């Protein structure tokens, strides 16, 4: 009986998927920031109003060298500007 518990725990741990392959993500650059800004600009003006500040802030961060943070804000702005789906 005492041997059963470690065996079960080992089974549980063994059953977890093992991350064997490592992959890298494409590093977002200033060009991607501009692409996101252009995508935001193509939205209807009424939708842009909802997240304009956020998009501008993201674009500014990108140009200030904080690309990752800027991309994140631009994405949040794009999502916020999307029409709500019920």
């Amino acid at each position, binding site marked *: 009986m005492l041997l*059963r518990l470690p065996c079960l725990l080992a089974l549980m741990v063994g059953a977890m998927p093992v991350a064997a392959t490592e992959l890298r993500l*494409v590093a977002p650059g200033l060009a991607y920031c501009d692409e996101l800004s252009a995508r935001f600009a193509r939205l209807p003006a009424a939708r842009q109003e909802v997240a304009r500040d956020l998009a501008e802030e993201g674009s500014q961060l990108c140009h200030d060298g904080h690309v990752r943070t800027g991309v994140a804000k631009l*994405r949040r702005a794009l999502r916020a500007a999307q029409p709500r789906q019920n």
Partner: protein
Amino acid sequence: MPHRRQQHPGPLWRLLSSAGFRFATLFAALFLAAGLGFAGVLWWGTAGTLERQTDSAIRADAQALAERWREAGTDAVIEAIGERLALDADGQALYLLLDPRGQRLAGNLVSLPPGAGEGPAESWHHLTLEHEDEAPGEARLYLLELPGGATLAVGREVSEKQRLRALLTEGLAWAAGAALLFAVLGAWLMRRALERRLTPAVATAALIAGGDLSPRVPLSAHDDEFDRLGASMNTMLDRIAHLMDGVRGVSDAIAHDLRTPIARARNGLEEALLSEDEDPAALRGAIERGIADLDNVTRVFQAVLRIAEVEAGARRAAFAPLDLALLLADAAELYGASAEARGQTLHTGWTAPLNLTGDRDLLLQVVANLLDNAVKFTPPGGNITLSAARDHDQLIIRVADEGPGLTLADRERVGERFFRADQARTTPGSGLGLSLVRAVVQLHGGVLWFENGDGPPDFPGLVVLFRLPAAAAPAV
């Protein structure tokens, strides 16, 4: 020769070898099994559900993109991937679209997993994602080969879910460890409790094994299984002590009762040997008296042996259907003459037939012993009654005399071998007659009891009754 297992004195060995530990281990095993079952269900319902939901969302997304590929071509899928990535505020979406030559067309993954294109058209991969300024994360990736040879990869980063799963695993491991700890603690407590409860019985048994039969197991107020065990042991010890007293009493009685006839025979023979009277008739008379005395001794031994035989149930094989009415008539005829010789009257009364299954010789001996006692103790001119009746499926036999009767205390002891009531000391007898009666009645599954007769309080007479199981009346 008693076999005793070697004792290991170590406390760990004593814990492991104790019954309490085994019981506790069994309960712990059940507890752990139930806990693991519960954990399995919990796992399936939380981490498993999250994984299944993620896989389902990935597959649906990939199928939607593949559909778009078929309907609108490569550019539409590139635009769709760009749109999806642009709206992925959480940064968890993974996409990669490769043309048939392996050139990257869209997506945020640098490349496919090694060997991904060599497998089947659809495959799942578990990945570690490298981030520039964060710790590596876990991801699920679904690869789909599109018509024309292009490859689409859709995935999600699942680090949050992995962390939740790790938390669950850790919690379950801690719970299992705690259960194990409680199992060991419970085993130790249960073993100690069992040992404490069994110690009085063990100590008493050890004292008795040492030769002292007087100790008894002390009982607690719990009235639990251990107290019932102790009470059973005490009852058994009382019975053993009673039997040993009986054996001792029989031994004393045999020594006492046989000493007189043996000494008398010896003295008579010695006197004849030393006598100067050479009259052959006198010598012959002395030898005959000696033989008669020794015959009495033999009879006593035979009676003791017969009672032992009856009590052991050895005569049960000789049981046969019989009519008790005929047996009572024989006994009445035999003892009617004796009673008449002493001026007594033997009254009889029963309704034939009185069928039962039993040993005829033993039952005749029973009735004869009772009538013999009745004749012996009833004064001349008195009445003796022998009667029997059927009471449902029982036969009740009754022998009543007008003798001195038996006190309540004597009635308790009257089945003991060689017991003789004070009033019977002056009459001939060995004290074995009623012992045989009781043994034979019990052998037949019956009950023996005594009642007072109708006489005055100081000389009430005795009514001996016994009940025997009747056989079913034969079909007419």
